């Protein structure tokens, strides 16, 4: 159960994210969002936590240089959630947030509909087809044939409903024959 245990220091390095020293925080809420926007998702480092819709709220108290951030897990059992929390703490502390509170909130439940346009583009460039935007209608969403991220063909088939991470399914393009990941609508 201890998926919440501290992760090795080099966890993010192992996933290709570089431990950058963030620019100093100016104390504003906008500055907080800028810092959060630069933090990559540990499992899909091409996309930021903000663009995945994981960061729900950010509040600042400039006078005391304190901040509060609300995040939501993608999947209830996603082991990356704790890594995400730790990375937010590391980055914001390094940027000069004196007092930081990171709250994990499950309601309202995360949905792939919260992934931003920039996030969808980044997924596509990374070789992961972004989710269809009808997550609320699962029967229809399951009928949806995602386009191949390489050649754009919709002649694709599912190889596996579950993939390398909880959020992905494995598909194959029948046109260019390449397999690809599909970000499941949730």
């Amino acid at each position: 159960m201890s998926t919440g245990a501290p992760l090795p220091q080099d966890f993010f390095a192992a996933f290709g994210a570089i431990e950058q020293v963030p620019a100093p925080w100016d104390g504003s809420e906008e500055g907080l969002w800028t810092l959060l926007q630069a933090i990559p998702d540990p499992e899909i480092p091409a996309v930021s936590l903000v663009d995945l819709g994981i960061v729900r709220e950010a509040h600042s108290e400039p006078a005391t240089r304190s901040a509060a951030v609300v995040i939501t897990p993608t999947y209830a059992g996603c082991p990356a959630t704790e890594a995400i929390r730790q990375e937010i703490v590391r980055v914001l502390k390094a940027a000069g947030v004196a007092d930081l509170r990171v709250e994990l909130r499950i309601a309202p439940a995360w949905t792939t509909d919260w992934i931003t346009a920039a996030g969808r583009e980044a997924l596509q460039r990374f070789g992961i087809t972004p989710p269809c935007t009808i997550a609320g209608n699962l029967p229809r969403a399951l009928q949806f044939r995602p386009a191949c991220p390489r050649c754009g063909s919709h002649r694709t088939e599912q190889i596996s409903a579950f993939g390398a991470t909880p959020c992905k399914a494995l598909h194959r393009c029948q046109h260019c024959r390449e397999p690809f990941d599909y970000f499941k609508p949730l």
Partner: protein
Amino acid sequence: MNTPAATHESTIDLKPLGPQHAAWVLRLADGSLVLSQRLSEWCGHGPVLEEDIAFTNIALDLLGQARLLYSHAGALEGQGRDEDAFAYWRDESEFRNPTLVELPNGDFGQSVLRAWAYVSWQCLVWGTLAKSRDTALAAIGAKSVKESRYHQEHLGNWVVRLGDGTEESHRRMQTALDYLWPYTSELFHLDAVETAAMDTGLAPGLDRIAEIWTANTNATLHSATLTVPAPTPFLATGRQGRHSEAMGYLLSEMQALARAHPGARW
């Protein structure tokens, strides 16, 4: 556990809805954890790589549910027990999962059928929680139902594929169905804890899900060309803490590390 699964507790009123409130939440949590443990036994043993990955993914989602539910039960109980205390430091008679989820895996078809029966029930329970007076539990239900519906879809497809497959796969699925089905009645048995959950507004409409579950599962089993066994008077007793002989082995494997190295960290 060094950090709670979620701190949603801070925003809600934690007054239990009656003395059985935490007990009912624990039944749900135990069901998720024990099925997660069973499914994870398939890791590295799946018949094909894709299903190996599917089972471990479903196991992980169930573990996530269990963590949220245990944290919530601990907060309701107010005695400082965290998720690890519930998972690793209770003995067999303190676990209140239905017997169905602890039964040995059997072959792949039996594992599929058992998990499908349970997640189909879970989908309906999460649905009833949408109207729960326990808003934290409603949030857990709203989070979980999205994942459970994927599980139900995937496992249900396999039930049909194997049931309506080869002569051998059909025979095995019918055997598994005959073996497992008597255990499902425990899911719908309205004892004092279940009745209290209904009456206090914790899980309104709990008495209506048996009918829906039966209709849903019968439809799939029919597509799978399987014969639904006739009801029997047998009633399993896992939820009362009286488990099958399989439970002790399951727990000894699951709890061995935590008990051999108390407080161990990664």
